[in-house]
């Protein structure tokens, strides 16, 4: 990292509304929650078979809150809402929270703005695990869960564990070492994935479908298992806001601020890897959410993790549920394609607009 002396260009003046938002994180949070609510209802209402908004709300009030609403809707509408769309929207929001928080954590921990939830090999590990599961002759499936989910989850965690073990033994500066090891292990796993796909034959399409990410297979059992795992990891991350703040100026400064750097790094890496692995196992590889959402929030409220983390979680949920809605409106596009198509240009625009140059 080249310290200090980097020439800094003056930033383009921030628009007044953006500046005023910076001092109103509560307004941003409430607006985000409002958006989550709107996307939630829209995600259940809209689709191939439209269900009226009034019916949607009535069904939800009846089934979830137990309100004594008179049943005026078709039984098929209730099935669509309760069995297909509700778990799907919940899954998309949960994965959105997971990816946004994991992205913010990895960026803060590695002090690298280009870090995303997949930086330590989770993506390649999960992909290879899923591909191997699809290749196996045995197909165990229980309540919508199969070998695929298990292997993807295990593959992602195994990849991070290998990266962590190897990088700690390296002689390089720990941060650089972690990043480079992540890259190397990721490349190796990608080669394994390519080989598996080459041998896959008729399973190729399934593997490809998984790699692009989708919520079309979301089900209640998935929600029941995925949500608690992700909630646990997210709770750990949210409770470590102080450590992430202390780490903003590097590990040595963090130690001077009383942070147990070794322990906090392990806790945060573990939690972020856990939620990423769970997210990837549920929905495949969905890019750009974990990279773009934390940056967007940081542009508005600054780097303070106490604001960044909760706001990234809220907007991550809204963004991914919205992207999933956009993905299924024209038929059934992979949601990972939608997030990339929307996320990448928007991110480039923001970088140019605000010249959010980073010191590296």
């Amino acid at each position, binding site marked *: 990292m080249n310290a*200090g002396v980097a020439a*800094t260009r003056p930033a383009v003046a921030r628009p007044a509304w953006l500046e005023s938002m910076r001092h109103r994180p509560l307004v941003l949070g409430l607006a985000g929650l409002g958006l989550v609510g709107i996307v939630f209802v829209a995600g259940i209402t809209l689709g191939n078979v439209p269900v009226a908004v009034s019916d949607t709300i009535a069904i939800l009030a009846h089934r979830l809150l137990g309100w004594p609403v008179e049943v005026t809707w078709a039984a098929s509408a209730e099935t669509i809402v309760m069995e297909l769309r509700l778990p799907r929207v919940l899954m998309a929001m949960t994965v959105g929270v997971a990816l946004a928080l994991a992205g913010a954590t990895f960026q803060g921990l590695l*002090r*690298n703005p280009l870090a995303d939830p997949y930086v330590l090999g989770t993506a390649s590990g999960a992909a290879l695990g899923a591909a191997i599961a699809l290749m196996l002759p045995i197909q165990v499936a229980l309540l919508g869960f199969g070998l695929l989910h298990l292997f993807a989850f295990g593959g992602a965690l195994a990849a991070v564990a290998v990266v962590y073990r190897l990088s700690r033994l390296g002689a390089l500066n720990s941060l650089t070492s972690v990043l480079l090891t992540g890259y190397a292990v990721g490349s190796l796993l990608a080669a394994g994935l390519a080989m598996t796909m080459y041998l896959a034959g008729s399973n190729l399409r399934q593997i490809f479908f998984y790699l692009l990410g989708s919520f079309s297979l979301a089900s209640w059992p998935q929600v029941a298992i995925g949500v608690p795992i992700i909630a646990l990891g997210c709770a750990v991350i949210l409770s470590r806001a*102080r450590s992430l703040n202390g780490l*903003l*100026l*590097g590990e040595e400064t963090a130690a001077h601020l*009383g942070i147990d750097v070794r322990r906090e790094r392990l806790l945060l890496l573990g939690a972020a890897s856990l939620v990423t692995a769970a997210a990837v196992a549920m929905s495949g590889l969905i890019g750009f959410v974990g990279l773009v959402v934390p940056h967007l929030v940081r542009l508005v409220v600054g*780097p303070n993790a106490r604001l960044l983390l909760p706001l990234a979680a809220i907007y991550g949920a809204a963004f991914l549920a919205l992207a999933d809605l956009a993905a299924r409106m024209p038929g059934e596009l992979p949601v990972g394609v939608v997030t990339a198509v929307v996320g990448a240009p928007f991110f480039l625009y923001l970088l140019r607009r605000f010249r959010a140059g980073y010191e590296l």
Partner: protein
Amino acid sequence: MSGSELEIRGLALDYGARRVLDAIDLRLRGGEMVALLGPNGAGKSSLLRCVTGAARPAAGTVLVDGVPVDEFERGTLARRMAVVPGQTVVGFPMRVEELVALGRVPHEHPLLGPRGADRAAIGAAIERVGIGHLRAREVRELSLGERQLAVLAMAVAQGARLLLLDEPTVHLDLRHQVAVMELLRDLSVRDGVTVLAVLHDVTLASHFAPRLVLLDGGRLIADGPPAEVLTAERIRDVYGVDPALVMTPTSRVPA
């Protein structure tokens, strides 16, 4: 509140097979300001790293208020001792007040965050260092001098009774060098903060610090008031330069 006492006893440090510090004995009373001088490689920064706990000494002990540093609970030590590095890399865009707020990390509630006392300390530190006009500026847009003042404000906000600085005036122009040194002297004299600063500029050090400690080759070779420590012989021996090039206290221009 008075400054913390710092005592270093028989300290030795090895980097691999090489001994970089040997038999260092040094004691700072509460509220004292001491400049640590010496040529490149003399062991100044290594000594500081032993005090902060970043380096593990091969022998000897470092005591803060009579307690060995490695026996402190991390948070307690961070509330008592602040460290200012020569350069601070700001990984993500942040504003001056956000940087200064990081000084409260050891004080704030882990879950609930900064409280009223923390916010008051942040505001007071910004005023104290005189950077109120920079409050809402991006740290990366500041000059190096302004940035160093912001980092100092962060250390002031930390409210520590012992302040360790590693070349805090490096890269700064004359005006900012003086501003930083005046602030350090003020913290020592008015607030009773104990200050130990590694400095390269002999003139600056002898002007502002009432006590100098000279290191050479990992050993402490002189300790006392500037006029006693910076003799012509020592400057020739230690730095290998003509003493006339260095303005010692006797040749000091009136401030």
